[in-house]
């Protein structure tokens, strides 16, 4: 039997605990807290860290997520490094202030434990919560594992605070699957991570009384449009700078932070695209099918906003068939990730055939045999114009 090498810095942790550990190392000035399943263990773990004196953060206990995001916006405008965390209906309740945080250009970082939006009320994983705010102007980074969620907190923070970006960022992980599942997580050295993120020096801060500014004034027909165009440019910058900061973070962690991860894609005849934890399940199926001589591959998308259209088109240009796994529905339209991928492929001279899959709504399990069936559907050329609903009875 092989000996498993366990480094001292490897610790068994849930995704939620790993993200709280990142927050300990970041030591934000202010964290506004309101519990919601399955995000609660993030703030719970972090509150204990603060109570134990291992972080000097000011915790604000608020009465709703609308207040949590409002308090975070206020703290960030005051000049603080400010955070909160949420999921599902909490994110929906924040919605109004989520847009305001982005338009006020406040570099807030918010970990998310993805959960299905009500109704019917449900506490388990899907991506309807973050898809609901995909046009809010936040950067959205998705994580396959607890390790990725942990490391991408630092990437998100440094990207959000970059002077050419100044946008808030969500770091998403799958509710329960990742947030409550225990994995071995390598926690990087405190000093190294502190040095990586550096000191936060806001250019405009309400508490900088020598240079008074007004945050969030009225802009009507005269200037609102110009302010929106600034957000468009900031997102373009975020896409470029994401890779630069990712390379810098790679030096510390040894992991890659491309817009997406390509798994066995080089000679693949069929590729499935997914986000968050299901990417791991698909990798296992790819390994099994490769052993059987079937040329299948996977693309795991890390950066959903800003969306890397050109790079995805380039990566998929020689793939005959592409299937897209959405864990959210867009009622009356094509599913969100499928729509974006299809959009990205429009400019190719030779477009791959496509198939849309929706799976796992409300935490419905997805099994290896179902992923294998999806690959076989693509390999056999049985694509349809309709979305295939995996695991939904009667579909």
């Amino acid at each position, binding site marked *: 039997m092989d000996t498993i090498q366990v480094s001292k810095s490897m610790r068994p942790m849930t995704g939620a605990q790993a993200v709280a550990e990142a927050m300990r190392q970041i030591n934000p000035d202010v964290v506004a807290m309101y519990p919601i399943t399955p995000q609660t263990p993030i703030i719970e773990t972090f509150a204990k860290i603060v109570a134990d004196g291992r972080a000097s953060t000011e915790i604000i206990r608020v009465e709703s997520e609308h207040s949590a995001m409002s308090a975070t916006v206020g703290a960030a405008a005051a000049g603080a490094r400010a955070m909160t965390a949420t999921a599902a209906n909490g994110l929906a309740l924040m919605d109004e202030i989520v847009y305001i945080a982005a338009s*006020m250009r406040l570099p807030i970082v918010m970990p998310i434990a993805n959960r299905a939006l009500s109704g019917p009320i449900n506490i388990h994983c899907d991506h309807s919560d973050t898809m609901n705010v995909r046009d809010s102007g936040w950067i959205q980074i998705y994580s396959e594992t607890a390790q990725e969620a942990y490391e991408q907190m630092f990437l998100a923070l440094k990207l959000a605070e970059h002077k050419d970006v100044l946008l808030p960022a969500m770091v998403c992980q799958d509710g329960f699957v990742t947030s409550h599942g225990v994995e071995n997580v390598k926690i990087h050295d405190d000093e190294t991570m502190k040095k990586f993120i550096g000191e936060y020096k806001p250019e405009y801060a309400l508490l900088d009384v020598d*240079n008074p*500014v*007004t*945050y*969030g004034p009225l802009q009507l027909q005269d200037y609102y*449009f110009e*302010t929106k165009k600034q957000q468009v440019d900031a997102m373009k910058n975020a896409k470029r700078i994401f890779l630069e900061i990712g390379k810098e973070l790679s030096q510390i962690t040894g992991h890659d932070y491309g817009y997406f991860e390509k798994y066995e894609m080089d000679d693949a005849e069929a590729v499935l695209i997914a986000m968050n934890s299901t990417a791991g399940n698909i990798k296992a199926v790819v390994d099994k099918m490769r052993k059987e001589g079937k040329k299948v591959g996977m693309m795991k998308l890390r950066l959903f906003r800003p969306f890397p259209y050109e790079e995805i088109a380039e990566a998929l240009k020689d793939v005959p068939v592409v299937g897209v796994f959405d864990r959210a529905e867009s009622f009356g339209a094509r599913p969100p990730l499928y729509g974006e991928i299809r959009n990205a492929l429009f400019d190719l001279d030779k477009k791959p055939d496509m198939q849309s899959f929706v799976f796992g709504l409300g935490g419905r399990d997805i099994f290896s045999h179902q992923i294998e069936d999806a690959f076989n559907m693509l390999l056999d050329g049985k694509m349809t114009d309709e979305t295939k609903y995996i695991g939904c009875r009667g579909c």
Partner: protein
Amino acid sequence: MIFMGDKFPTQEHLKKKQNYKDIPRAGLITNPGSSMLNKTGTWKAFRPVFDAGKCINCMICYSVCPEEAVIVKDGKVSGVNLDYCKGCGICANECPVKAYEMKEESEFKK
């Protein structure tokens, strides 16, 4: 892009609307007190015309004007600051001696 220390908006900026790259991000106002530059008096459709001969200096108009546009000098009402008067007509409505007459703004633009 305007940077720290640069003030926005100034009188200069109000003369011509600025391009999106030439204003602070997020609509930030970096010139404190610059709301005074915005002459809201241009909004009015009716203008109060003040008759000092009728005025008894009761100060009702001064206390009810929502824009603090009634000018008082040495304890006496001396007229209305038309740069900020929005023409709501509360002064004329409340005046017990009818010292204000509301006239259409178009009459003054002939």
